[in-house]
């Protein structure tokens, strides 16, 4: 477990020192949210109604685009070789990296989500609910994305391929995440439970796929 923490703290330190990765994801998220009203027109009632969907979709796109580099640097500089023969099973290496992605990308995005919600005239009392769905759902998102990043590691056009591979897998997250705010009776509690189950399942299952893909990338 100490090796897991050592790797996690190293990745967090690197993300904080670099900064630009977090900043780029935040910038992408905000521009994606802002450009949609330009296409739809400034109808505040409409924007307010579709705000949860816009925020979730922008969130997913930001997560996909930022995950591309998750293993790339470690592979290029030889760290992945050294990590792979260390005491930590590849599954836990993948889990640590995915968790680092959640902490360094998803958490900052969640933090600026209320601000993005303001841009879309989102109802204030819906904001805590939206944040709850994001907090519960995006952990699973990071783990699915981590498996995708491991699969496309070192491929030409990997950055373009990755969204094609994992966006279909994000469909249930999106459905339950936005469905929670549909206003239907019982929808919130039901979908947040489903979202939680989905996240837990991804956290438990995806590292195995990611580990297989990581070992493949070392050959």
């Amino acid at each position, binding site marked *: *477990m*100490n*090796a897991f923490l*050592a*790797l996690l703290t*190293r990745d967090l*330190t*690197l993300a904080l*020192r*670099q900064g630009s990765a977090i900043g780029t994801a935040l910038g992408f998220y905000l521009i994606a949210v802002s450009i949609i009203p330009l296409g739809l027109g400034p109808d505040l009632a409409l924007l307010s109604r579709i705000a949860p969907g816009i925020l979730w979709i922008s969130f997913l796109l930001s997560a996909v685009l930022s995950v591309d580099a998750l293993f790339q640097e470690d592979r*290029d*500089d*030889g*760290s992945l*070789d*050294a*990590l*792979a*023969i*260390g*005491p*930590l099973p590849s599954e836990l290496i993948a889990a640590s990296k995915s968790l680092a992605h959640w902490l360094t990308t998803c958490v900052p995005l969640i933090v600026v989500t209320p601000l993005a919600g303001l841009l879309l005239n989102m109802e204030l009392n819906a904001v805590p609910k939206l944040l709850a769905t994001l907090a519960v759902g995006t952990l699973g998102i990071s783990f699915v994305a981590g498996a995708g990043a491991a699969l496309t590691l070192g491929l030409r056009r990997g950055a373009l391929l990755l969204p094609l591979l994992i966006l279909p897998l994000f469909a249930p997250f999106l459905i339950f995440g936005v469905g929670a705010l549909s206003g239907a009776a019982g929808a919130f509690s039901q979908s947040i439970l489903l979202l939680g189950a989905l996240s837990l399942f991804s956290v438990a299952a995806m590292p195995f796929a990611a580990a297989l893909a990581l*070992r493949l990338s*070392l*050959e």
Partner: protein
Amino acid sequence: MPVSSLAALKLACQRGGRIVVPALSFKVEAGRALILRGPNGAGKTTLLRTIAGYLPADSGRVIVSDDKGEGTGEGHFHYIGHTNGIKPRLSVIENVSFWQRFYSGADDADAAENALDAFALLDLAEYRAGHLSQGQARRLGLARLLASKRSVWLLDEPSVSLDAASTRRLETAIRHHLAQGGIALVSTHLDLALGDAATVLELQHGRAFAA
């Protein structure tokens, strides 16, 4: 050190479905080094990566005997390839401390500092690794070997970009490792002064013989 020997038994190494090293057998006892030589493309890297377990062998196997019996050697290897495994944004000491923590699971500041000292990097400990020259970065990569103890060192061209003085330090580190009962497999173009402890294995395309 618990490993008593490393053996390859009719080990055929492949890369991308192509056999690069045909059935090769050798045995290295504790305290000894095997120097791999041969032209580029003779399969030195493939052989080392197969032994480390990155590449599946085409046939044959690697047997590492330790105090628990025979195994694949998982958990006994240090592997240093052509890249150094260091992060330019971490300081020199943070880099080596990370690997020390990662491999041994506990903080040991002395081990990390001694590893830097052995490769004459202690003075630079607080600088960012991104500022290091190529030779210094290589030494930092090699310092990982000393930061946490592992019995079998697999070194692929470790002396690349090292100056003469640094190469001496590398030799000292390997000799010390062997004296403690370690094993080293080193591919190199240079002559490393390892004395009687080293055996040379020439790899030519498709063939291998002891020299």
